[in-house]
């Protein structure tokens, strides 16, 4: 990092004592080209502003739910670049591409800038006063039970305030919806380990077997896991870690595996039990009930069901037996079936059998203040809201941090149902698909302009509360922070209680100072503490100690591999890519132009087909194919991809917007739309991998826009990227 010999803590102290609510006064929304900008933006610059010298302010990344702490480079009142905060236990100063694109969210030209009253296709700009009055008017006479709040993951003080607001409306209807979430796993983990999200110590394992967990790409906390992965590769006791990935469609993690085992879609659980069986056969002592439960899963049967060769099964079992501790991870590819919970239980069983629980699977600390712990999302939330809307139980709908019109399968008819609500309010950054259906759109500050606290679900070390603070003055004068809006709304109800808080900043400050004694030395001055807190950007609390409690269950009922439907012979795997995830960041051009690591395709969606299958169907790269499920069809370019099971096709999620902004609208297709309405038997989560599809050629062919050249991933025999077998290198002497 560039160290300019300036202590940024000093700057922040000045900032704090100055009592400025925002970090720096900026230059507004003018550009150099316009000639409106003054070279030095200040007549009387604050002491900490030296033209030409960058200062760094810490905050928390809001691009996904991992809660990485970031350090924003600010110069002349503008945030230029987001870097990792080295003190963060989550990301240790590192970042992913998605996180760095946060500045493009902030500076996005397509952000909503004014409160909009919408009717039909038109939006009328109104004032905040009018907007608040309108909400008050619409809430008048509506009972609390008829008011629904649909949000994405919320945590920290915003969640507290939201809870209080709902309470003031006497509504209990806060639904948290995440289109892509490890919800099945949470339930399975709760059973197996006694907590939804234990700590996974990849770095302590010698072998990691991941059943579809894309921990290097998009799973839970990828930056954190990537760092652990690097340690894991360097090795425990000098022995390089071995990664085995089991999945039907290669993820980024699969692409980095020592052995990538392609399984028939949905048979991950069978393979897990097969490995348990093989471990028993290899001499591992299995508990009696486990041994009984897996006795039918002999190698031949498992090999036949899953498509994994007996040789690999044997080798895998031998490796797991020989090298301990190991770690077995469970990801979306295994849980996205109607029998997802069973798959999950079978996979978690492996950790128990291998004795990893307590070693590489450890208890995570519990958030000591449950009210700020994250409300984690799942698709059940959407399902409930949707049902309520369909039945007319919901009169007023608030949406925040989620885009259900885009991410809900068309079969749920969410858009139609949403229209049934009398009044829809969207708190939005963009005019996305959901905001377009709302009656009132309230413009939000970007994450780099807002105050808040963020508590991530996955806590690798104690509990880290991320502090979110503005890195620069608001770009657009008429946007507001979600906290500020909630505060204004709650004052409509409970004016007395909240009158001492002018804004969310004062609320947050008061709330955090209230707990000062628990975070800081006794007797620390309020201001000093507050400034330390802001300059650090994180609050590390030890967290309530926690123990793993659950127990494995040997009673796992796995269905036999499903017969293929003649009409819909292929399984659709909607893949979650590291940069676009569920599509909320699709309007950030860096992410659109950052090639998908595996296919290298940019600015579009595609259908991954195994070359063998493609040859069978007469499909070549660039053919526009129609992917039809029972619930609709989409057309996208075909890409021949060797890392996928021949009975599956895969379409990435996140693109295919028909609103949101110039960098998202019209690029690609939305695979959410054709997902079938199949749910996990136990949790009721949408089973994302249960959609069966067929492919048909449309006769159109285009040139795929991608980074790789006409020879694709071939090195043509030239020594460019070299792989060596582990027995041919000596890693011990390396630096």
């Amino acid at each position, binding site marked *: 990092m560039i160290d300019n010999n300036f202590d940024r803590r000093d700057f922040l102290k000045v900032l704090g004592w100055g009592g400025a609510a925002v970090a720096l006064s900026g230059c507004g929304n003018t550009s150099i080209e316009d000639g409106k900008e003054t070279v030095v933006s200040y007549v009387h610059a604050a002491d900490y502003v030296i033209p030409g010298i960058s200062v760094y302010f810490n905050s928390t990344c809001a691009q996904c739910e991992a809660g990485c702490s970031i350090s924003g480079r600010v110069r002349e009142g503008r945030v230029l670049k987001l870097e990792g905060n080295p003190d963060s236990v989550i990301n240790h100063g590192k970042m992913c591409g998605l996180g760095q694109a946060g500045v493009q969210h902030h500076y996005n030209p397509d952000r909503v800038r004014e409160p909009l009253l919408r009717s039909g296709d038109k939006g009328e700009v109104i004032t905040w006063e009018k907007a608040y009055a309108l909400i008050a008017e619409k809430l008048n006479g509506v009972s609390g039970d008829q008011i629904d709040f649909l949000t994405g993951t919320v945590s920290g003080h915003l969640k507290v305030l939201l809870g209080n607001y709902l309470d003031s409306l006497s509504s209990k209807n806060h639904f948290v919806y995440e289109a892509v979430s490890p919800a099945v796993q949470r339930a399975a983990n709760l059973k197996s380990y006694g907590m939804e999200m234990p700590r996974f110590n990849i770095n302590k394992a010698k072998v990691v077997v991941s059943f579809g967990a894309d921990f290097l790409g998009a799973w839970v906390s990828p930056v954190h896991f990537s760092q652990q992965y690097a340690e894991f590769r360097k090795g425990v006791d000098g022995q390089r870690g071995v990664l085995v990935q089991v999945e039907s469609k290669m993820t980024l993690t699969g692409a980095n595996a020592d052995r990538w085992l392609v399984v028939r879609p949905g048979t991950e659980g069978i393979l897990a039990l097969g490995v348990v069986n093989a471990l028993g056969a290899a001499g591992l002592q299995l508990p009696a009930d486990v041994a009984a439960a897996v006795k039918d899963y002999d190698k031949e049967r498992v090999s036949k069901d899953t498509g994994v060769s007996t040789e690999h099964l044997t080798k895998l079992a031998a490796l797991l037996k020989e090298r301990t501790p190991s770690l077995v991870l469970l990801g979306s590819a295994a849980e996205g079936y109607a029998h997802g919970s069973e798959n999950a239980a079978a996979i978690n069983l492996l950790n128990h059998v291998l004795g990893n629980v307590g070693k590489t699977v450890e208890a995570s600390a519990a958030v000591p203040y449950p009210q700020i712990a994250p409300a984690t999302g799942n698709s059940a939330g959407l399902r409930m809201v949707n049902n309520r809307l369909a039945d007319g139980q919901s009169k007023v709908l608030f949406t925040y941090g989620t885009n259900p019109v885009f991410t809900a399968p068309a079969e749920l008819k969410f858009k139609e149902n949403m229209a049934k609500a009398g009044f829809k309010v969207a708190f939005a950054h963009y005019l996305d698909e959901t905001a377009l259906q709302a009656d009132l759109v309230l413009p939000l500050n970007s994450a780099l302009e807002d105050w808040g606290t963020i508590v991530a679900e996955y806590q690798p070390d104690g509990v880290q509360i991320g502090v979110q603070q503005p890195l620069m003055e608001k770009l657009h004068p008429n946007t507001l922070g979600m906290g500020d809006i909630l505060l204004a709304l709650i004052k409509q109800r409970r004016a007395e209680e909240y009158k001492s808080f002018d804004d969310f900043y004062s609320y947050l400050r008061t709330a955090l100072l209230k707990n000062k004694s628990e975070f800081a030395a006794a007797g620390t001055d309020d201001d000093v503490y507050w400034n330390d807190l802001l300059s650090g950007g994180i609050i590390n609390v030890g967290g309530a100690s926690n123990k793993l409690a659950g127990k494995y269950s040997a009673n796992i009922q796995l269905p036999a591999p499903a017969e293929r439907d003649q009409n819909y012979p292929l399984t659709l795997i909607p893949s979650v890519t590291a940069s676009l995830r569920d599509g909320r960041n699709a309007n950030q051009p860096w992410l659109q132009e950052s090639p998908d690591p595996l296919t290298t395709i940019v600015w579009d969606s595609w259908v991954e087909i195994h070359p063998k299958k493609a040859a069978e169907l007469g499909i070549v790269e660039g053919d526009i194919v129609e992917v039809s499920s029972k619930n609709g069809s989409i057309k996208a370019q075909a890409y021949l991809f060797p890392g996928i099971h021949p009975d599956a096709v895969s379409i990435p999620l996140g693109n295919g917007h028909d609103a949101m902004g110039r960098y998202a609208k019209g690029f690609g297709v939305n695979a959410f739309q054709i997902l079938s309405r199949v749910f996990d038997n136990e949790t009721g989560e949408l089973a994302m991998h249960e959609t069966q599809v067929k492919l048909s050629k449309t006769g159109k062919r285009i040139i795929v826009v991608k980074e790789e*050249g006409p020879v694709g991933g071939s090195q043509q025999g030239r020594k460019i990227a070299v792989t060596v077998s582990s027995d041919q290198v000596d890693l011990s002497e390396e630096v």
Partner: protein
Amino acid sequence: MKDIREDIAWAKINTDVLKSLESPRKLFWVIIISALTVFGIGVACELYQYNMGLGVANLDNPHVWGLYIATFIFWIGMSHSGTLLSAILHLMHADWRKPIYRFAEAMTTFSLMTAGLFVMVHLGRLWQFYYAVPYPNERWIWPNFQSPLLWDAMAIFTYLSSSILFLYVGMIPDLAICRDNIHTGWRKKLYTLLSLGWEGTDRQWRNFRVTYLTIACFLIPLAVSVHSIVASDFAMSQQPGWHVTSFPPYFVAGALYSGCAAIITLFIILRYVFKFEEYMTLAILKKVVRLTFAIAMVWTYLNLIEYATVWYSHDEVSKAVLIQKATGTYAPFWWMMNFCGSIVPLIMAFKRFQTNIPVMMVVSLLLNMGMWLERWMIVSPTFSHGYYPWTWDHDQWPSWVQWGVVFGSFGWFTFLFMVFCKIFPSVSMYEVKEMVYHRSLASKKLEVAGMQESGKGAH
């Protein structure tokens, strides 16, 4: 068949050639207007490209060069025939060059001027082209003299200015004739000025002869060096398909080849447009055709040598480029180039075609197309199929902007050439007289042995 009638009156030579300077035929205007139209298209494309950036040419990373460089080499190559005819054949006393060398030299000059345009068109920041000029400046910033591109610039400058001077010096006696015969208008002033007061005195002729010979001697190595340097743009690089030792002679042979083919084309056109049948005789055409055939075979040999060295070497990367040329995206053009360059010239080996004007016209155009393709096939496939497979790019296709500029250059060349032929005598009058004189002397010598004495000084 004689190269020229030996009994043409000298005065008739003057009249015939001077006639070509006056009252243009309708056909002349048709040619001029079509040339300007085509040139205008090129200019429009260039303006568009100048405004938008080179991206509109549909070049990309790493395929950074395309038709501009290929056509640049083509024009440079074309220029070599003028030197061949005027300098090499002059030293070899092949006097049949005399009726046709003037327009060949003009072709040299104008094709160099056209090539120079491509250097400009090709630049990403055309407005900063002067950075490549070694002008003294207070910041001591100089161009990079190690760059073959700079050598190119210098070689073209040297060659162009030397060619212009050579053309001009050789034209002074003819300009004096023009001065003496045209007594009106701006032409008179022009010819008076340019003829420098030439009177054909013995002193003038004596120095003229030595100077002409000296410059001819310089021009030959210069011409060879110019195309070797153009070859160095490629041969000095490290890229497969370019880093070829035999490139300099190969380029020089290719240059002479395309130049000769162009001479045949222009020979036929001038013969027709300006009615020069008396001077541009079929006998001379035959000689030019035979010369072209010989050069074609040299080129074919060097071309095959290049393939052979690549094929038998252990340089897998270069070999891959060669295979790609023959089988990949560029295959049709590559085969076409080999066909036009090596098979088509075989027609010229047949006597009855050597003087068949329509056949020779078609052949010469095909040869030139082959040679243009050759340059393209040198430039592009290496970009498409270089050292680094990840960046291979087999889909690159020049946009209409590139094609427009390339076609425009032909308009520009034709325009300059036709204007030249209207202002300056495109057949060297004094040299045709010399040719007629010496030939008739020689004939007489054969007829009357007794005239030895008076023919003492004759060749």
